[in-house]
Each structure stands twice: as structure tokens, then as C-alpha cells.
């Protein structure tokens, strides 16, 4: 087979790959739009206050791991304590911070040493002490040695948690006050089968904060953050919503998810060595449930919101995306035996293969595809007209999916009330393709390269703190 034949096959394969990828996005968009509509109609006959007053509403423990988070820990914990839920316990884990994280907590919440029975159901790094706030007894702080991962810290929190449901929240994130009530709607409708529920994570950068609460939702100025706003909308409102509809949700964001504690404990908690501990946990829950042939559901609820600080610079964003890619490999590779096995149902037949082909291998396939197209053009094998049309199609289709995510945001929350914000959001849907997409591709390849070299060291994100992030944006 000569070079021309190879290039022809390669270009055709790339064409069909791209086509199938777009088709799956389109299906997810349609499913997500229908699903959101149904959810909102369902909410029309429900009042959240009824959940608050019901004696059957189960207690929840919020678990917030913190490692060197002195800049954001106080407003974050304050926001957790402001969450409107009848029986709430907040467990913050100081995971061997070397900055003033623990001191800030002590000053702000008047922590007193507490003699609690700590049963280490899941092994973690050594716990130095347990503290309870004198100003708000719902707050418990676990002070422990650094375990080298967020998972280790969360496991210590799970050992302390006393509620049947736990909600893991990043300490650089803020829950909206009704977030738990909203996420519990779907759990309480089928508590026997729903073992985990994920809410939506949104970008805090640019919003205005006051006393640990969001005062005004605004779009940030930095283009790199706006691109992330669109990405988050697309990932949660289209991706997760669509996959959850078919009970094929494979990830619940580590920044905000509610789990049945007994189920998490039964799979041994979070895997301390996992790079993407949130994805890893959900994969293990799927595996356990399917192995045991248990009926279960992992759901996504589109209206409870958790606001999070996203990387404000290309450098820290690059680190984060490389880590996400490493996390993806770290989960997909050990679970490769789940692929196409009858026992693992649609997870093994659809969800995991999709992740392999369109997420994990996407950077490599894209690079190979681009290289083949360029080579074909150089050899004069490519019709210039078709090439340009194909590029236009790719550009417009991706923009359409992003605008679809903005429409979903309009249907579900409509948090960006300002017309200018919405106009900018739509404009950025058209700017995302160049050079942000290529940068993203590069970071993902970097992540794969690092993983192949065995470089799995955690590189921390530069944080400016919730209040600084939120108030850093000047009013237009």
C-alpha cells in the first residue's frame, strides 16, 4: 500500500471519527434539552420547603478537604455553614497544610479540641486531632498529616461523618444555599436505588461575594476564564445531563457530589493513589453495583449549583487539564476489563468505550488527523474546496453545541441576567476554536506524556482566594 492509499484511509477514518463525535454531541444536546425541560416541569409541583420540614429528610455531612487553602478557607467554610438544610454537619479536613489554613479556621470559628470517637474504617494518614467550633457546633475540623492526595483527606472526613449521606465539596468552592435541598429532590424520590447524585459546578471568577454568599453573578473579563465558563456549561448541562439520562454517568465532580455513605464505605472510600479520585470513585461504584447485580442509579441534578474558582492563567489551567487527562488514563486503564462485557451493561458497552475513543484518544487522533490532512494537502491529494468546507463545518458545529449550552443555561437557571454578559458568552462560543482548542489539545497530550513517564506529581493551582477572585473583576 503506498503513501497515497494510507493517507486516503487515514483521512476517511478521521472524517468518520469527527462525524460520529459530532453526532454524539448532537444527541447529547437534544437529550439534555428534553431532560432539563422535564426536570423543570417536575419542579413546578414541588416546594423545597417541604423537604426542609419533612421528618424523613436524612442528615448530610459536608466533607471539605483543604490543603494550603488559607486564601479561601474562611469564606468557603462560612458558605458551607450557610447552606440551608435541616440536619447538617460540616467536616473540614486540614490535610497537613503548611500555610495558615488551620490557624485561619481556629481564629474564625473558635475551634476547641473535641473528644470524638474516631473509628478509622478507611485507612488514612495519621490524624492529629479533632476540633469542634465553639461558635457553630455543626463544624468539625480534622487536623491530619498530609496524605499526599485529596482522596486521603476525604477518607478521613468520611471516617468522622455521622450522616447516611455525604457531600464532598472542594474548599475553594461555594455551595448555593439551596443546593443540598435541590440535589436531594432526586435522591428522596428513589432513596433505595439512587446511590449518588451530582450537581452542577459553575465558575465563580468574576462574581461578587459578600459574607460567604454570592451577591451578583457576572461574567469574568479574562478570555481564558470565559472559555472555561462555556466549557463548564457544555460539560455539565449537555454532557452530564445527557449521560445521566441513560444512567451512564461516569463522573460526579469532586467539587460537588452527594453519595450514600454506606456505598462509598463499601467500595473502600476514595482510592488514595488515584489522580482523578472523583472519576475513580464513580467507576468503582458502577463496578461494585454491576458485579453484585444490584439495581442502582447515579443521577445528575441540573439546578443545585456549586461555584468554584477556576485557573485564571494559561499556566495553571494547563496543569489542571494535564492532570485531568492523567486522571482519565488512571481510571480507564485499570478498568479496561469492563469494556464490552455483558455484566457491565451499558457502562461497558457505551459509556467507557466513548471515553476511550472520544476523550482519552482524542488528542492523539486529532494530531494524527491534522498531520494527515496537511500531508495530503502538500501532496496535492486534497480537494481545497472540500478541505475549507470541512473546516467551516467543524467550526460551525462546535459553535452550535456551545450556543446550545448557553441556551440550556437560559432554560435552567438564567444566572447571567445582564444582556451584555449573555452577548459576550455567545460571542466567545465563536472564538473558542482558535487558539484555545489547540492549547487544550497540547495540555492533554502533555498530560499523557507525563503519565507515560510516570510523572504523577500533584501540581497545585495558583489560587487568589474566593473573595479576591470574585471581587477582582471591576464593574463595567
Amino acid at each position, binding site marked *: 500500500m503506498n503513501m497515497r492509499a494510507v493517507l486516503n484511509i487515514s483521512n476517511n477514518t478521521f472524517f468518520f471519527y469527527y462525524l460520529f463525535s459530532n453526532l454524539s454531541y448532537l444527541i447529547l444536546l437534544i437529550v439534555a434539552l428534553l431532560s432539563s425541560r422535564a426536570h423543570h416541569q417536575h419542579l413546578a*409541583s414541588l416546594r423545597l420547603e417541604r423537604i426542609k420540614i419533612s421528618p424523613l429528610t436524612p442528615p448530610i455531612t459536608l466533607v471539605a478537604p483543604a490543603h494550603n487553602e488559607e486564601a479561601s478557607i474562611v469564606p468557603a467554610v462560612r458558605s458551607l455553614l450557610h447552606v440551608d438544610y435541616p440536619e447538617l454537619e460540616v467536616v473540614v479536613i486540614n490535610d497537613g497544610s503548611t500555610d495558615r489554613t488551620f490557624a485561619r479556621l481556629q481564629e474564625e470559628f473558635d475551634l476547641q479540641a473535641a473528644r470524638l470517637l*474516631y473509628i478509622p474504617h478507611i485507612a488514612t494518614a495519621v490524624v492529629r486531632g479533632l476540633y469542634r467550633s465553639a461558635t457553630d457546633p455543626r463544624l468539625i475540623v480534622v487536623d491530619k498529616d498530609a496524605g499526599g492526595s485529596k482522596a486521603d483527606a476525604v477518607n478521613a472526613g468520611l471516617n468522622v461523618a455521622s450522616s447516611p449521606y455525604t457531600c464532598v465539596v472542594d474548599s475553594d468552592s461555594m455551595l448555593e444555599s439551596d443546593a443540598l435541598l435541590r440535589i436531594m429532590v432526586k435522591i428522596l424520590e428513589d432513596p433505595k436505588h439512587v446511590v449518588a447524585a451530582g450537581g452542577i459546578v459553575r465558575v465563580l471568577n468574576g462574581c461578587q461575594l459578600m459574607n460567604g454568599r454570592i451577591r451578583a453573578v457576572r461574567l469574568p473579563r479574562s478570555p481564558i476564564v470565559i472559555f472555561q465558563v462555556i466549557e463548564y456549561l457544555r460539560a455539565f448541562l449537555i454532557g452530564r445531563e445527557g449521560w445521566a439520562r441513560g444512567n451512564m454517568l461516569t463522573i460526579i465532580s469532586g467539587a460537588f457530589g452527594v453519595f450514600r455513605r454506606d456505598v462509598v464505605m463499601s467500595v473502600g472510600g476514595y482510592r488514595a493513589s488515584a489522580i482523578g479520585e472523583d472519576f475513580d470513585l464513580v467507576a468503582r461504584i458502577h463496578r461494585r453495583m454491576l458485579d453484585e447485580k444490584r439495581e442502582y442509579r447515579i443521577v445528575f441534578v441540573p439546578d443545585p449549583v456549586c461555584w468554584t474558582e477556576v485557573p485564571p492563567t494559561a499556566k495553571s489551567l494547563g496543569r489542571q487539564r494535564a492532570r485531568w487527562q492523567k486522571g482519565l488514563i488512571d481510571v480507564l486503564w485499570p478498568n479496561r476489563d469492563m469494556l464490552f462485557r455483558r455484566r457491565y451493561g451499558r457502562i461497558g458497552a457505551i459509556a467507557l468505550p466513548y471515553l476511550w475513543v472520544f476523550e482519552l484518544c482524542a488528542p492523539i487522533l486529532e494530531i494524527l488527523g491534522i498531520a494527515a490532512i496537511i500531508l495530503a494537502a502538500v501532496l496535492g491529494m486534497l*480537494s481545497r474546496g472540500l478541505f475549507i468546507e470541512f473546516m467551516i463545518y467543524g467550526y*460551525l458545529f462546535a459553535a452550535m453545541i456551545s450556543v446550545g449550552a448557553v441556551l440550556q443555561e437560559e432554560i435552567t437557571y438564567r444566572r447571567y441576567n445582564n444582556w451584555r454578559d449573555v452577548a459576550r458568552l*455567545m460571542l466567545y462560543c465563536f472564538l473558542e476554536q482558535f487558539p484555545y482548542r489547540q492549547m487544550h489539545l497540547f495540555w492533554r497530550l502533555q498530560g499523557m506524556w507525563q503519565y507515560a513517564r510516570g510523572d504523577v506529581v500533584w501540581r497545585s493551582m495558583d489560587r487568589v482566594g474566593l473573595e479576591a477572585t470574585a471581587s477582582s473583576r471591576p464593574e463595567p
Partner: protein
Amino acid sequence: MDKCAGGNAKHSKMSSLHHWINASAAAFVVRAIIFSLTGIALLVASILARRIIRRHHFDRLAEAGFYVRQHWDEIIGGEIPRNEWREVHADADAIITQALDRMETASEEKAARLLDFLRDAGLLDRMLAEAREARGWRRDAALVQLGRTRALEAVTSLVDALGDRNSETQLAAVRGLARTGLAQAGEAMLERVVAGDLALAGTSLQNSLIACTRVNPRILLPYLYLAQGPVRELLARVMAEVASVALGDDLLLLASDALPEVRASVARALAHAEFGFAFPALAQLATDEEWYVRLRALTSMGQFKQARALPVLLRGVCDENRHVRQRAAEALAHVPDPTSVLRDVLKMEDAYALQAMIAELDRTGDFERILKTLESTASLTGRAEAEQLLEALEAGAEGLNTMMRLPAAARKTVQTV
């Protein structure tokens, strides 16, 4: 030669396939561009249209709400003729919303007056018609709204909706019936539940039954005796929330029921009975085989704050289940002399019981005070005993810390209950 011919044929086939793909792809890509452009235009138009329509809609609602709020007394008193607002949809909606909101916080007498107003103004009839005739989510919302009126005539329409094929409508009807809080609504649901005609996953049905049977838990009894299997479990959980002394001797009968949920509900209800009446049953339930029955029994026992309950509570603090131990400790920490309780606990030589007591006393803020009291005990006779207790408490407190400080490998050998 043949090989060469075969190779040429293969090449020719490949080439024609490639041409076919190229030609099809070109046509497809043009169509896909048109599709994407149309999609973008439609999506952008939807966003803009939605924004404009919503703005207009909410402006109109706000305007109507403001008008109604300003003229509420005149509207209720009939000084503003009903024809003026009844045919204006937004105004009538605003009046219904405000009347229902006010009913929720009004006294019984005022709520009854508001209900009369809704009846006289024909608004209740309108709500009844909407609950019967609307479709989809509008009907679901109308059913819940109808329930909020707490009108007896609403029950029939709501009960009819329980038979709907759509589970969302059934759920809305159940929620509506819950809002009435009427015993008639409770009985209608109970009949369907026991007959197997109403089975909804989740807590809505239970919440609704709780809301409607709380006023008279006795209506649950015949259905509870009649029901079997999971339905009986469901009713038992409802009973656990609403059971009261009004159940009288039936409580004692149910205390030895085969279903643990029922026994737990009895344990909970007995907290509101006379101590003399409740004690024997609670003492028996405190030794039940199910941990949550024991937990409920000990919680109820603790609420009496009676000296006779102490031996039962002390047994409870040595329970094999840590939740039960903690609940017993919670009750024991509130007795007038916790130091004497600590002495009794120490005599039992149960490290977990002592830890439960220390943890609870620490939570209530009494632990340090007790330590100080023991340190300052001056009497010669009490000194030795105080020191012994002090030593045990400090060792117990340290024991609580030891477990979490153990290295991960060693922890696997620690026996935990």
C-alpha cells in the same frame, strides 16, 4: 501477471471507493454547514425570544401582584367588583397566589375566611376545573395548588388524580393531598396503598401519609393490621412519625409486633405517654434484637429523666452498636449528677461505654468541669475514688485519640464496632 492484475483491480476498487466517499462527503459537508448555521440561528433566536417573553411575562405578573397587594382589603371585602379582575388571568392568578400564601400563615379562623372568599369568588371552582382538565405539568402544578386550599371538596379531585396513569400526576396528587392535611385524604391514600393501587418510590407518599394521619393516628391502625410485606413496612415508618398516646393500649400490643419498624414506632410514641405506662414496654424494647428499636427505646427512656430509667440506660451505653451507645450516653449526660453515672460506667469495665460518655460530656461542655471537680475533691474518703475516676477518664480520653493516631497498617487490627 495475475498478481499484478489482481493488484490493479484492488487499487481500482480502493480508488473508486475513495472517490465515492469524497463525493458523498462533499455533499454531506455542505448540508452539515447549512444544518449548523440553521441550528445556530435557531438557538440564538430561542435565547433572545425566551428573554423577551420572560421579561414581559414577569413584568405583567409583578404589576398584577403589586396591584393585588395594594388593594387586598378591597378585593377581599368585595369593594372592588369581582368582574373587574376575575376575567383578567394575571390578576386572578395573583389573587389566588396571595390568598394561598396568606392561608399558610393565618390562624384557623382567618384561613377559613380566605377559603370562603375563594369559594364565593369562584376561584376555587376555577382551581378544581384546572386540576381536572389541565394536561401535563400544568395539571401537576394545579393539583398541588388545589391541595394548598385545604378545602374538603378538593379531596375528591385529588383522589381521582391518584388513579392517573402518569406517575408524575400521581405524585402531584399525593403532594396535593399532603397539603390538605385532612384525615379524609389520609384514608383515601391508605385504601389505595393497601389495595396495591398506589405505589410510589421515594418519600413523598410517606410524607403525605404523615401529614394526613398526624391529626388522628388511629386511622392508620386498621390498615396496619391488614397490610403485608413492604406496604406494612411503609405504614410502620409512617406510624413511627405520628404515633402518639392516643393509640392507647394498641401501643402495648404493637410493642411485640413482628416488624421492627412497628416496634420502633411504638418506642418513639411511648416517649409521650405516662412513665408508669411506658416503662415496662420501653425496658423490653431497649433489649430488642434490632439496633434502631433499642436506639428509639433508649431515646424515649432518656426523655423521662427518671431514676428508674438509669439501669436501662447504663445497659444501653454498653450496647454493641455505637449509635445506641451514643444515644444512651446522650441521655445519661443529662442526669443531675453525671459524676455518679461515670462511676457506674467505670464499674462496667467497658472501654467503649466510657468513650461514649466522654465524647458526649465533651460535646455538652461538661467534661472539663467534671475533671476540675474531681481534681479539687478534698474529702479524704472521696479522694481515692476521685483520683481513680480521674485517671480512668484521662486514660479514656487519651484512648479516643490513640485510635486516630495509629499508623494505617496497625489500624487494620483494631476491632471496631
